Every structure is written in C-alpha cells, then in structure tokens.
C-alpha cells in the first residue's frame, strides 16, 4: 500500500492540476491578506470559499484521477498486490497530495505574514484542520463514486450531486424543517443535523470561533455547550473521522467486488 501511495502522491504532486489548485489558494490568500491586512477577516473570507471549493474539487479531482489512471490500474492489478491496497493506496495518494496543496496554498501566506504567535493562530489551525478533514472525506466519496461507475459521466455526475447535496440541498431541507416545526424545541435537531453534514459541522467549528457572539446568543445554549466543550470537540472530530472511514469502507467494498 505504501508503494502505491507513494507513486500516486508523487505522480499527483507534480501534476498540473495539483499545482494549479495549490497556486490558486496561494494567490487567493496572498491577495486577501494584502487587501484586508486583517488575518481574522481573511480567515472568514477563506472559510466561505474553501467550504465550497474544497469538497467540490476533492470530489471531481478524485474521480478524475480514478478515470485517468484506469489503464495503469490494470497493470497494478496484475502485480502481486491486494486489490484493497491498490485503491486505498491511491486514495491516500490523492488525499495527501491535495492536502499538501491546501496546506501550502493557505499556510504559506499566513506564515509569511506572521500568523505564529498571534491570537489568530487558533482560528488558522481550525480552518486548515477542517479543510483537511473535508479533503479526506470528499476525496473518499468521489473516489468511491468513480469506482462504482465505470462511465465517467455518471461518476462525475454523482460527484456533483454529492456536492450539491452536502453544500446546498441538505441545508435547504434542514432550514425548511426548522421553519416548519419552529413551535417545537429544535435545539437537538439542529445540533444533530449539523453534525451529520461534514460541511455544516466544519463551518460551525470555525464560526464558533469567529461569530461566537451570534451563535452563543441563540442556539448558543446547545451549540456552545456541546461544541465548546472538550467532549463536544472530540465527538465532532469523531464524526468527521467517521465520515472519512465510511467512504474508505465503501472503496474497500467496491474494490473487492469489481470487475476491471
């Protein structure tokens, strides 16, 4: 598995798309810091962008990589390797190379502008950490989707659908529920709903640090008690981990049953 991971990683880290991806964040972050100068504000702006972009790119990039390396995978399958090692190895290769792009793209400008030792450091780490989790989650979902559908139109379609669902539709449904059932106590529903969508959970983890006044004011009672506590943070991270584990399990399952 390590071999496959290494080859996928080195293949990808040098690919045009990874470099464009990392470069985009690099330029964006530099530009934002340059324009506003307020690191906290930059983190807020970056949050809005990355929570949209990271899942989308992770989904599309992993499907693209699968289809692209489809022929080479046949050679790998003929080698004395476990199937699961090939695909899980590729998964880590994609996830880690995207993560490196992300860390370099977002991190370098902050380091240069001296995030270390400021009070923003914690927010910065939250932003990076959450986006890394999202990368691992959505690379997994995209890769599993591509593994499921040999037809790349279907694979990409599924990826975009997954993204639409988690980024937009899910929230629409939750909001509808909250408005329709507003006469009932919905604290726990809201909390539950936010935990099961990794994008929502990520956003709230960052917002708890940024827009804390608004969040604490309202559902604050529940959100702050839960996500403000160590237990809450551990549960949140555990849920995100589960979201990483689920697609990996799905990749294993599909890899063991698929004809190539």
């Amino acid at each position, binding site marked *: 598995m390590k071999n496959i991971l290494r080859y996928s990683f080195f293949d990808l880290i040098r690919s045009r798309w990874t470099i464009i991806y990392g470069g985009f964040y690099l330029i964006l972050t530099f530009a934002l810091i340059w324009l506003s100068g307020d690191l906290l504000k930059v983190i807020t702006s970056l949050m809005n962008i990355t929570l949209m972009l990271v899942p989308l790119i992770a989904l599309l990039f992993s499907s693209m990589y699968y289809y692209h390396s489809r022929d080479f995978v046949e050679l790998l399958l003929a080698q004395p390797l476990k199937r699961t090692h090939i695909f899980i190895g590729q998964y880590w290769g994609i996830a880690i190379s995207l993560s490196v792009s992300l860390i370099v793209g977002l991190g370098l400008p902050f380091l240069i502008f001296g995030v270390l030792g400021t009070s923003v450091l914690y927010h910065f780490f939250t932003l990076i950490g959450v986006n890394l989790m999202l990368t691992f989650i959505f690379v997994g979902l995209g890769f599993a989707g591509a593994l499921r559908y040999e037809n790349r139109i279907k694979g990409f379609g599924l990826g975009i659908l997954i993204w639409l669902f988690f980024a937009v539709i899910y*929230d629409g449904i939750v*909001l509808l529920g909250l408005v329709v059932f507003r006469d009932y106590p919905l604290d726990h529903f*809201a909390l539950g*709903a936010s935990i099961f969508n990794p994008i929502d959970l990520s956003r709230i983890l960052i917002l708890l640090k940024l*827009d804390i*006044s*608004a969040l604490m004011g*309202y*559902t604050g009672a529940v959100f702050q008690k839960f996500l403000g506590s160590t237990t809450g943070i551990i549960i949140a991270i555990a849920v995100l981990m589960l979201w990483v584990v689920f697609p990996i399990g799905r990749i294993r399952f599909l890899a063991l049953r698929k004809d190539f």
Partner: protein
Amino acid sequence: MKAYLFTIILIINFSQSQAANWQVCAECSCSQLSEAIEAASPGDTLTVDSGLYQEGRIIIGKSLVLRGNNYPRIDGKGESEVITITADHVSLVGFQIQNVGHSYLEDRAGIRVQKAKHFIIQNNRLINTFFGIYLEHAQYGLISHNFIEGQAIEEMSSGNAIHLWYSKHVEITDNEISGHRDGIYFEFVDNSQVRRNKSHHNLRYGLHFMFSNDDEYHQNIFRENGAGVAVMFSKKIRLTENQFIENWGRAAYGLLLKEIYDADIIDNHFEHNTLGIHVEGCSRILYKANTFLYNGWAMRVAGGCSKNEIKGNNFIDNTFDLSMNSQVGDNYFDGNYWSDYASYDLDRDGIGDVPHNPVKLFSYVVNQSPEAIMLLRSTFVDLLNFSEKVSPVFSPPGLEDQQPHIKPFSQNFKTYADDSASQDF
C-alpha cells in the same frame, strides 16, 4: 466639578463651627469608630488609622468627615451592615469595608445612605459586601473612585454594587465595580450622572435602571456582564461615549432599551455583544455616531417603536446589522456606514448611489426559528439572501438607508479595545 463644590461647602461649614479632629486607632483613646462618632460634634473630622475594626452597624447621624489612613478595614463579620449615613454633609473617604454577608431577608449594604443630602463617598474599597453602596431617598451626593468587588454566585443571593432608590442629583464617577447582581442600579432616580465607571463581570446587568428620568451616562465601560445593560421605563436620558463590550448569551444585550422616550444615544461603542442594542417600545430616540463592531445583531427592533432616528453610525462586521420584528413605522435610517454595503459611488461624494437595505432575509428567518442560526454563512443561506436582495419579498418596505456612507466614520474617543493594555480589568 460638583465634588469640589461639595468640599468647599463642607469646609465653609466646618470653619464656622470650629471643627475638632479625632484620631481613631488601636492604641488611641478612641479605639472604636462608633465611640469616636458618639464623642464627636457635627462638623468634626475623624481620622482612622489602618487596622482591622470589627464593628458593624455604625450609624453616622452627624455631619462628620471620616477619613481613613491607608484603608482601615471595617469588618461586618458577615453578620450585619457596616455603615449607615443618616445625616446630611457626611464624607466617607479611604476605608475598606468588608464582609457584610448576604441575607435573603434584608438588603444589607456596606454603606447605606438614608434620607441624607450632600454626602461624599470617595476612594473606598468595598470587598464582599452584599450590597455595596445603597442609597434611599438620598440627594446631592458624590460617589466616586470606589472599588467595589463582590463574590456573587447566583442572582437570588447577591446584591447590587451601587444601588439607588428614590434619589436625586447624585453623581457616580470613576468607580470600578464587579461581581455583583447589578453593577449600578437605579430605580426612581432623577437628574443624576454616571461617568467613567467600569462595571464588569456582574451576574445580571452592568447597569440597570428603571423609572429614572433626566439622567446622563458618559464614558462608562460595561463589559462581560451576564445580561449587559438594561434601561427601562425612563424619559430624557443621554448616553454618550459608553462602551458595551462582550456581553454574551441568549438574553444578553449590549444595551436593552425598553419604553424609553426622548433619549440621545451618541458616540457609544458596541463590540462583541450577542445583541448590540435591543429596542422595544421606544420613541423619539436619536442614535448617532455609534459604532457597532462584531456583534451578533447590531440592533434589534422588537416593536412599538416610532420616531427614532438612526444617523451616522458605523455598522461594521456584525453578523446581522439589523432585525425588525414589526412594521418599520416612522423610524429613519440615514447616512450610516454599513460594512455589508456592496455598491458603488460613481459621483464620488462619499455616499453610495444605491440605497442600502440592512435587513437580510436570513435574519428574519432566524427571528422565526432561532435554531436556524446553525446555517449561518452556508451556501444555501447566501443564495437565499442574494435572491432576496435581487427581488425583495420579505423585506419591509421603507427600511432603507438612502445615503449609505462609503467609508466608516472615525470614532472620537479611545475604545476599550484600543487601550486594553493600559486598563487593568
């Protein structure tokens, strides 16, 4: 100014009556404060050396000047009130008054002023007093430079730091107050001034006043109080250059205004509050040149408000700038700076060419179902707000700032955030 005036009046009085000076210390002929008060004549001065005086229920029924050297500690031993002033022209300066002990039956206080006039309570430290300074039917007094620190844990068993009831013409300046139920409490207090106080970490309100008219509040800092500041059922008040900072919670306000008429709220600073200002049933209020920074809601207008003017304020990076529960009525927003304003100023006159609507659809939704706050800044909500902006359906008509400023107004005083290093909160 008034402080000096009082002092001058006192000095004139004393000189007329050939005032004597009494020394109180452990080895002195008067080792007890109450003995000395008993012995002294009106107009005399008592100088109290440092040390521990375990005396409660000291009643100052004569016009005396009491002066502490290096904070003599007057200890109520957790059983009783410590000092009660019942006479006019009393000064109490430089004491540490401690351990009053809480009671569910009576409002015990460190210093009580009862139906007295022309008193000065200055430069005292009140530690762990149930109520700190308690005024009833008092007039023409000065309470300044006192340090009042309580250890309130729950509202039911705690008192207020500076409590005024049916009083007039009182000046409260430069006090530092923490750890009580309410920092400063006014009920039926008229023509009084509250200046440069710091009221923080109180369980309920940093400032709480009701049925009090013609009062002024300037340059106070209210920080991290359980519910912020509440101003209710009053007329003709002025709040200027105050700071309302970090009041967080489901029912926490920088400033709660309820049933207020004819007030000026100018040059105040609201930062990091769940609600900057919550307004309910208020009329003829001028909000001018205030800055709202990083609040959950900068302003929430709940209903029954009319003839209010909101002019020249800064609304910067608040989660929501404004929420309106009711009809707009005849309230005017004009010439404010909104950091959310995303339009252009082609004629470069500093005023945006397109009116700004400060109410977002999502803030309306959150009013209906508060839990929806979990979707704050989600893509879906952004789309929702955007579509509302493009074709308004829910936005109440007439709620527009016709002249939104392109650049923020500069603030003409230092905020807590600016000089937090120099303030030892």
